């Protein structure tokens, strides 16, 4: 009988809190969007599934050994932990979890050893998160793979489009200001690190967003990643009205000069050039852009085809699976079901809108000062969201002028946007660390 009671107490129904139930529904919603609506399925299928796993009551898949011990341990164990933490009278287990997270590394080690001795272990998703994201490796490997898949030809044929990629990053910084504004107005409570991590959603680049928030605001990582990937999938809905509002029919009809052929030598040299500029001026962007350039060099140099092939296939696929599940581990109810998530979702879509607008306006500005006209529809591709945003530019271009194929022209600002948001990420990481450190 006691056994039956134990089993019942260990079963999900008994332990399920409303938060976990809600989060399982959120996970199912993400899966629905990914599978039926084709919202970035490569990421949102693992993220949604991981989110469900993280919220299975009693399974503790997303908790460390120490957290599991705090959640499931008896009062004797909790007392020992409170002693280690120097807490005389801890108000709640939740307060103790926060105290452990804030404790010096040596104390954390002690608590972990105590948990291990009591028979608790890390949850599966916690291990995935530690290895894939906390170490920083998964977003970087994805970036390497993206580099190996990127053709800089259109950008090299028309380097001016880098300005479009730069302008579109204004979405990032406007969002930082927005997040700060919400805090100053007392509506939300975002720190400067939170604000920076939220802003990066505007970069419209998943691995960059995950990398930055893992460093600056790990608690918000789940919401930020979900927002980033969802809005990337929504680019065909978000961008067109903004693009139409900011351009005249005449502008939308501009035909662009055909791009010149770009040779192998230029393609090989470009990633090295970018790397050297990073080395000289922006060391904090070195991990992201370094791996990106490395992937691209492997692609273009022509002598390591088997490595490039693996970086674009087996390696990026394996990493994507574990990255997605790890992001899902951050969809735990107590982190995600927070008013902050609403703020993040609202700010994220504003970020995309402002980025789109800035890109279009910059294209119009460039047309003022230069002879070879740019169709401002390709400005919106500067947000990155490769290759969706470029396709949107192409589609709107064809609507206005059925003979005007903008796709290749839009690939320039599109990949420029990847570089631009990695630069912005580097700047923000450095500045936030200086401010808070």
């Amino acid at each position, binding site marked *: 009988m006691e056994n039956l009671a134990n089993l019942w107490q260990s079963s999900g129904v008994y332990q399920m809190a409303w938060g976990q139930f809600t989060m399982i529904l959120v996970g199912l919603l993400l899966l629905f969007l990914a599978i039926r609506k084709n919202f970035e399925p490569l990421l949102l299928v693992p993220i949604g599934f991981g989110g469900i796993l993280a919220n299975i009551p009693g399974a503790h898949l997303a908790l460390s050994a120490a957290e599991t011990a705090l959640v499931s341990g008896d009062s004797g164990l909790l007392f020992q932990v409170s002693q280690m933490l120097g807490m005389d009278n801890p108000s709640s287990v939740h307060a103790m979890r926060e105290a452990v997270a804030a404790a010096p590394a040596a104390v954390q080690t002690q608590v972990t050893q105590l948990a291990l001795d009591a028979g608790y272990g890390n949850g599966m998703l916690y291990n995935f998160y530690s290895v894939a994201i906390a170490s920083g490796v998964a977003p970087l490997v994805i970036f390497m793979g993206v580099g190996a898949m990127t053709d800089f030809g259109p950008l090299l044929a028309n380097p001016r489009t880098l300005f479009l990629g730069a302008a579109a990053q204004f979405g990032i910084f406007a969002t930082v200001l927005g997040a700060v504004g919400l805090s100053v107005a007392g509506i939300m409570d975002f*720190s400067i690190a939170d604000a920076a991590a939220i802003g990066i959603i505007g970069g419209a680049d998943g691995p960059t967003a995950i990398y930055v928030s893992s460093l600056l605001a790990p608690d918000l990582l789940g919401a930020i990643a979900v927002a980033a990937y969802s809005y990337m999938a929504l680019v065909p809905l978000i961008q067109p009205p903004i693009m139409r509002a900011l351009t005249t029919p005449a502008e939308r009809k501009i035909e662009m000069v055909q791009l010149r052929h770009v040779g192998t030598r230029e393609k090989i040299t*470009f990633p090295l*050039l970018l790397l050297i*500029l990073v080395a000289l001026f922006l060391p904090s962007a070195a991990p992201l852009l370094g791996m990106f350039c490395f992937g691209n060099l492997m692609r*273009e140099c022509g002598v390591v*085809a088997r490595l490039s092939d693996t970086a674009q296939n087996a390696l990026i696929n394996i990493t994507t699976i574990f990255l997605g599940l790890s992001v899902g581990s951050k969809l735990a109810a107590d982190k995600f079901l927070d008013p902050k998530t609403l703020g993040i979702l609202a700010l994220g879509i504003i970020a995309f809108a402002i980025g789109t607008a800035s890109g279009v306006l910059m294209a119009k500005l460039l047309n003022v000062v230069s002879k070879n006209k740019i169709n401002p529809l390709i400005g919106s591709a500067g947000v990155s969201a490769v290759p969706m945003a470029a396709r949107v530019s192409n589609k709107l271009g064809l609507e206005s002028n059925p003979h005007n194929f903008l796709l290749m022209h839009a690939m320039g600002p599109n990949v420029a946007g990847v570089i631009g948001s990695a630069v912005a990420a580097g700047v923000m990481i450095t500045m*936030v660390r200086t401010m808070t450190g």
Partner: protein
Amino acid sequence: MQDTLLQQGMDITVFGMGIVFSFLMALVIATGIMSRIILRNFPEATTPSSGSQTPDDVRLRAIIKAAIQQHRNRNQK
């Protein structure tokens, strides 16, 4: 404290946007110089772009070529 947060946000925005622009401008200039040097010194006889063909493609084509060749030979008999 709130003032400071606002100030921090402004700092990040102003310097951040400035650096993004300056960096990409430097990249535009450097890329331009790089392309000019390469185009001047190594004018390519339009080479086919490399880097995108995986060994699989190559093998596949080779096999298919062979298959068709073999097939044609048989048909010719």
